[in-house]
């Protein structure tokens, strides 16, 4: 078991290393370097010189990569080209906000999606399944920025129940975001639930048509007992990985929602830093998000492996 765990962690580390290589070489390939990109027209003379100095661009590419990677492991991502601020702190705040948004959406969305997925799966092709599935398709296809605007209009402008725009600054502690985060979470949950619901539904349908459910029926096991003890544990296994895969999207992909709600998350920082050509920040974000993604996927794998007896015994024997 331990050997398998170590192997998985090694694989995760390799993935993160590859991400760092991809991002570093990606940036290297872009015309000019971090300073010329940032200073653009004013990239000459003393100004360019001390920017290069600050970013340590005078060293060879490999040396720079190893220094950068080594310090990154220690959590020191150097200084941003725009305003020479500590990147670790800048990105740290934004990551905290994005994780807050992601985790609250997951906490609300995943149980809801599983519940609805099971319902539509069990009452397949009945009215409740048809209505919920159509709603899911709509929720999935209407762009988030539209549903976000509609919700702001409804709850903040007309009804005035909830604050529409997030005014809390990036570095504020998580709890201060509370009333303002409700609307963004609702929008995020809508989209995420739609995706997971469809997956859980097809998985439940497949399991309910399985041989062991037929056998349980013919063993005289009452219907609901079959659903909860026999069917659901097997149907919900694949859901774990799907949820893990949405993390990459949740961390940086919800930029549109961040813009509409003025939410200080990673998505907006990505846009700003890339538009400003603040490449050190871009590299840092990529690395941090990749590490979180690998971490979450690793734990998802472990959870699936732990929940699925077939895999667990397979790995036990491998010890």
């Amino acid at each position, binding site marked *: 078991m331990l050997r398998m765990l170590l192997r998985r962690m090694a694989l995760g580390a390799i993935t993160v290393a590859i991400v760092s290589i991809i991002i570093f070489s990606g940036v290297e390939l872009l015309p000019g370097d971090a300073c010329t990109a940032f200073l*653009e*027209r*004013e990239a000459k003379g003393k100004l360019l010189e001390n920017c290069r100095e600050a970013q340590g661009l005078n060293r060879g590419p490999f040396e720079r990569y190893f220094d950068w990677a080594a310090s990154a492991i220690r959590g020191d991502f150097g200084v941003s080209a*725009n*305003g020479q*601020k500590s990147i670790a702190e800048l990105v740290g705040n934004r990551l905290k906000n994005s994780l807050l948004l992601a985790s609250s959406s997951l906490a609300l969305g995943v149980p809801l999606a599983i519940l609805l997925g099971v319902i539509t799966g069990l009452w397949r092709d009945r009215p409740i399944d048809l209505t919920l599935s159509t709603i899911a398709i709509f929720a999935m296809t209407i762009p988030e920025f539209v549903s976000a605007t509609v919700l*702001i209009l409804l709850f*903040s*402008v007309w009804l*005035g129940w909830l*604050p*529409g*725009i997030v*005014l*809390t*600054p*990036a*570095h*504020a502690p998580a709890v201060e975001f509370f009333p303002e985060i409700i609307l963004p979470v609702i929008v995020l949950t809508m989209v995420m639930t739609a995706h997971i619901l469809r997956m859980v539904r097809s998985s439940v349908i497949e399991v309910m048509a399985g041989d062991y459910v037929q056998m349980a029926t013919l063993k005289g096991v009452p219907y609901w007992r079959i659903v909860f003890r026999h069917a659901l544990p097997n149907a919900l296994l694949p859901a774990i990985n799907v949820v893990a895969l949405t993390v990459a999207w949740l961390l940086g992909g919800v930029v549109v929602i961040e*813009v509409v709600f*003025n939410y*200080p998350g990673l998505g*907006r920082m990505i*846009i*700003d830093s890339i*538009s*400003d050509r603040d490449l050190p920040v871009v590299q840092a974000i990529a690395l941090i998000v990749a590490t979180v993604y690998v971490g979450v996927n690793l734990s998802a794998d472990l959870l699936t492996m732990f929940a699925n007896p077939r895999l667990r015994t397979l790995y036990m024997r491998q010890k």
Partner: protein
Amino acid sequence: MKMLLTAAAASLMLAGVATAEPSGTFRQAHELGFGAQSSLDPISKGRVFQITEKIMNRLVRPGLDGKPQADLATSWDANEDATVWTFELRDGVTFHDGSTFEAADVVYSLNRVLDPDSDSPARSAVKMITSVEALDDMTVQISLNTPFADMPLQLMDYRLRMLNEGSGDDIATSGNGTGPFMVESFDAEGTTVLVANPDYWEGAPGVARMEVIGIADGQARLQALLGGQIDMERGITAQQQVMLTSSNKFDVQVIPTGNWRGLVFRTDVEPFSDPRVRKAVRMVADRDELVKLVLGGQGVVACDAPVEPNDQYRADIACPQDIEGAKALLAEAGYADGIDVDVHVSTLESTWPTLAVAYQEQAAAAGIRVNVVQMPTDGYWSEVWMKKDVAATRWNERPADQALHEIYLSTARWNESYFKDESFDAMLASARRELDFDSRNAIYQSAQEYLWENGGTLIPYTVTKLIGVSSRVNNLDAVKNDAVRWHMITVD
């Protein structure tokens, strides 16, 4: 001496001051234009004027009618050739940190601006000052290197705030001033909290607390106003005005101003280094249509001169759209098949994208192919403005002389179009020295015509400002931003 009287009369008007106990919170947004470099130092590049205007005072401030009015200087007069000015200061005024306001503070504040190392954009407004001395605790004498009749107008500049002597180093975050509100906590990217200054010299302010919140995106600010998260938003578009007036929760103030929006073409960069090209890109604009399209009619056409409509030196130039003329000029300059232009805008100012698209359509007729590029709102003024070749720009109103000096003088810090033209500089200098009003006026007129001929900035209109205000806010002066008496406001 005529001026002396008007100053005294104005100070009497101040008598009717609010006496009630300050209560409630007034919330306003600022645009985070300078991103990480925002600061409370009034003369710095990243000053957040929405905060400095509430915590600090000037010597002279614009009255409700726009004329200079007593602020920390109760009265002022000059010698015959207006080269030496003396100001009487207001007695009994204290800074927020308790220290008393006196002449030494004025000397310190003005010298700080004049000091070349401070590299402050406000320097061009007071460059003509050679020395500032305190005659006694309550009198200050300023001598100029040239006769300047409108000197008080210069001191009305929104950046020339009086600081306590020696407080220059930490002013960026402390915000120690004499204004109606004091800084409780400053957070550029988040919410800055100001509290009422009970012993403000004009009387305690009507509101107990003010919040100035950083929201970069214009759309987000509007949604925040509609959602009741902020109480005032300056610069809403005509279309949005329709929305606000339709609900009883909001009022809209319509204030003709000298503020203007436009597109700046850097004259130090190909192809705009050629004056003919510069003229062509500006001739294609149909300014009436732009006023209707972008401002919904709430604006006054301008001919690329930064002088407000009711300024005494305003030159009346006719600048109708001239597509053929522009094409000819372009061909003459060697661009027969037109030019490609990337115009950088952002939603920091809601009207910019609309202006760019409208201009794009009009310019296309003359073979000028415009590509509109959307830039992020955070840090627009520090990363896009005066960096990209062509970008949208925005200026608040200024008296003619100060505007011309600050935007087009070759040595001006904010010469956004990098307009280096000795003859134009000489013209301005002679205008200042000219004592006779008519001849001074003539020089300013020809300066504006000169800009119409070979300036680098397209200024299609000056804006009639629309200010959306929540109905819970009352007695907010319906005047230019610079003249609002913030201590008068109350909220229910």
